[in-house]
């Protein structure tokens, strides 16, 4: 796996960043582009998507997958790659993400594609920003469960205590609850510091068969359980207080044969602080509605919190390439399992890690994906 160190890349094209992260991940594994027989990309890949990128990268493929669920797509790709490898159809799978929303505009997300969606004229006419949508979920969560802005701020505080150790992090300053709740209000109840950063960058993952893994001189992390679920507005019956993790989580735990209590480290997609809080509830790390008290008192802070999370600083502080945070969630979970996280935030004896992605919006439709990974094969 590989994470691009850059956060502002004005002198790179989008395909170049895909190529850089592909090369980085393959070098990390001790493989080359010639070894890749399966390639996965999502909506951040321009043109024909995986087909265009495969041509640009010079890949010779017998397996290709463009599944698009927004920022969670890369975890869905891991699930699909693991299944294809288990079926004997794939030996070396490559997944890439790249984007430059900071210096290059929104990228190929496809405004035409979204404006032709059946829901478009019933949502786009009302000024729903991304923070605005997540704010609707946060406001309802507060209404039903008494969640407070100070509790949401604890999520950002934990991320910032981790980011201080990451020299590549976009934001490296430790912040306090007071600083979060006194930062400018973007869309009530979400403040500026409840929101993730906007950065360029990217990342890539390589998944291999057990036979290939045995030939590599690199610590390979096994995928033990995977789960994907979607949640949408259900014909006008949306419930804003939960995410698709209520279904993707149990699927991944069941396949891995573990429970939330067994997990040593979690990477939770943190587009906003509320995303983390609701996801932790939905994955079963605390009761529904109990997220606010769960994240208090440093529970998420590595290395000694009850449930260390996002030790790279996450989307809230480190990076959010292509406005899609799923890839880097997997990358940091792999670092933790390999014992290669920063020493200040490395979880001791990290044997089981969970990565979770949320794509789309809490306010409308989302793809949720959960991975449980172990330390050794």
């Amino acid at each position: 796996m590989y994470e691009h160190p850059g956060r502002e890349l004005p002198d790179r094209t989008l395909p170049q960043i895909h190529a850089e992260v592909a090369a980085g991940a393959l070098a990390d594994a001790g493989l080359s582009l010639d070894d890749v027989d399966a390639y996965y990309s999502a909506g951040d890949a321009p043109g024909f998507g995986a087909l265009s990128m495969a041509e640009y990268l010079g890949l010779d493929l017998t397996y290709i997958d463009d599944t698009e669920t927004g920022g969670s797509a890369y975890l869905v790709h891991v699930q699909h790659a693991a299944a294809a490898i288990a079926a004997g159809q794939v030996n070396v799978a490559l997944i890439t993400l790249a984007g430059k929303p900071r210096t290059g505009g929104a990228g190929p997300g496809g405004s035409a594609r979204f404006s032709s969606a059946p829901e478009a004229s019933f949502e786009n006419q009302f000024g729903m920003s991304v923070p605005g949508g997540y704010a609707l979920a946060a406001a309802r969560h507060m209404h039903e469960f008494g969640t407070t802005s100070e509790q949401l701020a604890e999520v950002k505080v934990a991320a910032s205590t981790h980011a201080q150790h990451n020299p590549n992090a976009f934001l490296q300053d430790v912040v306090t609850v007071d600083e979060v709740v006194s930062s400018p209000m973007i869309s009530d109840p979400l403040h500026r510091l409840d929101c993730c950063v906007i950065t360029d960058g990217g990342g890539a993952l390589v998944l291999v068969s057990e036979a290939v893994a045995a030939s590599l001189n690199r610590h390979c992390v096994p995928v033990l359980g995977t789960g994907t679920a979607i949640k949408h507005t259900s014909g006008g019956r949306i419930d804003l207080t939960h995410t698709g993790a209520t279904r993707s989580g149990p699927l991944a735990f069941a396949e891995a044969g573990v429970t939330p209590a067994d997990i040593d480290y979690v990477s939770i997609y943190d587009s906003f602080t509320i995303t983390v809080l609701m996801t932790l509830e939905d994955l079963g790390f605390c009761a529904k509605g109990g997220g606010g008290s769960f994240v208090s008192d440093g529970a998420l802070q590595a290395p000694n919190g009850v449930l260390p999370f996002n030790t790279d600083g996450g989307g809230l502080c480190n990076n959010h390439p292509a406005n899609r945070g799923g890839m880097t969630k997997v990358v940091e979970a792999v670092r933790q399992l390999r014992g290669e996280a920063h020493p200040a935030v490395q979880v001791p004896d990290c044997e089981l890690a969970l990565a979770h992605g949320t794509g789309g919006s809490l306010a409308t439709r989302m793809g949720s994906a959960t991975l449980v990974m172990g330390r050794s094969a």
Partner: protein
Amino acid sequence: MSEPGTFGLPVPPPTVNLETQRFWDATREGRLELPRCDDCGDVVWYPREHCGPLGDSSVTWFEASGRGTVYSCTVTRRIGGSWRAATPFVLAYVELEEGPRVLTNIVGCDPETVHIGQAVQAVFDPTPDGPALLRFTPA
């Protein structure tokens, strides 16, 4: 973006298609028409010619009350593009009396006073092309 509408918010024209023509035509007359599933009785949102869970079921259109309550709301204070000039404005989900939760704006009031559970009534905010956007004002 064109001039703001009656309530000071942008009024981008919707894309009208065969499935939504009836909904948008009614808004021109200040009426809220919605499709109700002939099988399960659910009112379907966004408007379409079938009911989600049953797939190929038919619907019958009817005139809805326009009454609802705020299911969730947020005062958007910072946003880019054509909406910047309209801040602060209220983005909300309103739960209609007939069931569906619809994404909308609450208008015609002080944004700071809008709250979850508040009773609201539909208003129709005309776009330059004729169809009107379904917004709500305190009842």
